């Protein structure tokens, strides 16, 4: 798609998102569901940075997501902090988690990195699960949604207000994400995916780049997690579980790995699909599993990725092998385009 076409499409998406609280009742969709789409999209975006751009199988981002959720929930419940401060604390907790796990994950690449991410991520799950006195254990913990906390507008956050906070966070995350992947730092991440040995020969410490990418990813997931807890006024251990990590990966691949808008699209399909299918049948998990299988076997490049590949082909640009879309070193990623 031409740069202008992409810009126009992005503008349309943003306008629709801005009007969503007024549009969603028309299609019988709860505003809170649309909020959930945005919030999980931020987490899916965090996976995108590691997996889609840096080529690391990040299968543990639920740890940071859950740390964000519990950070926000615990601080709101026990210290009665404001809405915005709860987000900040949740995010800080996720960043701390990244600082703690990063040094371990950094040492390995490829599928080993994935295995380490899965395993280490579970630590926090068991802590939340076992530390019943504070976290409520398996049952989770609920808490009242705190007031916003701006000095001039310390108002209660209703569902519409929440939506706009979530939208603001999403747009900020999206802009930050675009800036990061377009920066020399982001280019280096893509270069690491394509040929890490060469990056090292150029004198760059790839470990350090990956560590920073991991911290950014953890922070982003933390924002998503904190918002998620505040959205449902609840935090529970399964948010930290490796299944949740898998869902984020699915959203990202479904939408399109290495694309800027893919995570939002994937998250929308996942969250809204779950909402609709769960009301029809209790077998949501079968659909979900089938979606994984279909996605991997059928369209690994995701919706946005496949769409833009078709457009590129029409523009007679050489195409690459479809099968390894997310990890093929030469697969195209969107850098500096998209919004």
């Amino acid at each position: 798609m031409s740069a202008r076409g992409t810009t126009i499409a992005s503008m349309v998406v943003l306008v629709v998102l801005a009007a969503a609280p007024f549009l969603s009742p028309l299609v019988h969709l709860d505003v809170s569901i649309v909020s959930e789409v945005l919030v999980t999209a931020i987490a899916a975006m965090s996976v995108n940075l590691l997996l889609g751009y840096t080529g690391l199988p990040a299968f543990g981002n639920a740890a940071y997501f859950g740390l964000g959720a519990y950070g926000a929930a615990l601080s709101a419940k026990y210290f009665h902090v404001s809405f915005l401060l709860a987000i900040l604390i949740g995010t800080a907790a996720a960043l701390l988690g990244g600082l703690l796990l990063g040094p371990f994950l950094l040492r390995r690449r490829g599928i080993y990195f994935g295995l380490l991410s899965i395993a280490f991520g579970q630590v926090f799950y068991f802590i939340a699960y076992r530390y019943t006195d504070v976290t409520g254990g398996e049952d989770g913990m609920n808490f009242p949604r705190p007031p916003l906390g701006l000095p001039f507008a310390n108002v209660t956050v209703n569902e519409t207000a929440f939506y706009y906070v979530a939208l603001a966070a999403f747009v900020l995350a999206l802009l930050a994400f675009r800036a990061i992947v377009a920066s020399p730092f982001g280019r280096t991440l893509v270069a690491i995916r394509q040929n890490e040995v060469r990056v090292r020969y150029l004198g760059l410490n790839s470990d350090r780049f990956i560590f920073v990418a991991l911290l950014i990813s953890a922070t982003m997931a933390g924002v998503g997690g904190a918002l998620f807890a505040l959205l449902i006024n609840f935090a529970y251990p399964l948010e930290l579980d490796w299944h949740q990590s898998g869902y984020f990966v699915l959203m990202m691949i479904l939408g399109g790995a290495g694309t800027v808008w893919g995570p939002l699209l994937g998250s929308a399909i996942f969250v809204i699909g779950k909402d609709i299918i769960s009301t029809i049948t209790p077998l949501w998990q079968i659909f979900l599993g089938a979606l994984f299988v279909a996605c991997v076997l059928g369209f690994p490049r995701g919706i946005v990725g496949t769409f833009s590949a078709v457009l590129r082909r029409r523009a007679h640009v050489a195409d690459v092998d479809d099968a390894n879309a997310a990890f093929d070193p030469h697969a195209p990623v969107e850098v500096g385009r998209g919004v």
Partner: protein
Amino acid sequence: MIEHLAPQLVNGLVLGAFYAIVALGLSLIMNLTGTINMAHGSFMTLAGYLAYTMVLRGTSFWFALLAAPLIAVLVGVLVERTLVRPLYAREPFYSLLMTFGLSLMAEEVYRLIWGSNGVPFSPPAALDGTANLGFMVFPAFRIFIAAVLVVAIVALALFLTRTRFGLRLRAAVQDTEMIAALGTNTQLLYAVNFGLGIFLAGIAGVLAAGMLGLSPTSGNALLMPAFVTVIIGGMGSLFGSIVGGVLIGLAISLTTLFVPAASEVSMYVLMALVLMIRPRGLFGEEGLFG
């Protein structure tokens, strides 16, 4: 306290043998094809439920112990040939995702067939009592479990080192292209190897059903310790998986005795410690799996 120590240690060894055998199956599949089989726990659960149904229908426990894993192997090889095989040429992460999807579906299917709640699956009467080990008494079923698991591990070791097929399998792990060029049917190797991994999972699944309970998610509960086992032992090393399993079993049972709340976390602490000293695990080789 000290009189609890001995049973707890033996318990830890039995638990460790479980982790080891699940990890061995995972490692077999991982080493040859790079596939991290997230559905491994689902195959354990499947074998457990099949055995449960067989015993319920009146077959003997001994028959079920062998037949249920074999049926799981059939299902496993079918899945491998149809769904996993197309992914061998692609990045290993895709097969991880695909098998994850399969495990989600399997869990729901088990829930449909056998219900969400756990079902009782007790060992046969012959193994119901306790055995006197001289220094302590211990449930006979657990001794039996340990014995079966040890036999399975020894049989696997013999198969891999003493038979022509096992030799080919190990050669294929080192260089699949070379062994294909020398005329070995690598697709057959892949299928048998996958089946072998599932068979180990199936045996563990039936035994675990008797010891740890049987529910749609019970197999998956053993999957995570098995991952940690593989990491501690070192990816690529089968021997490492055995050592790793025993270490984790002991770590978990000892923390259960002293700090029950930390029993799960202890294995991750152990994993972190091992990785600090040896980043590729105790017996992992440099270069394998990055």
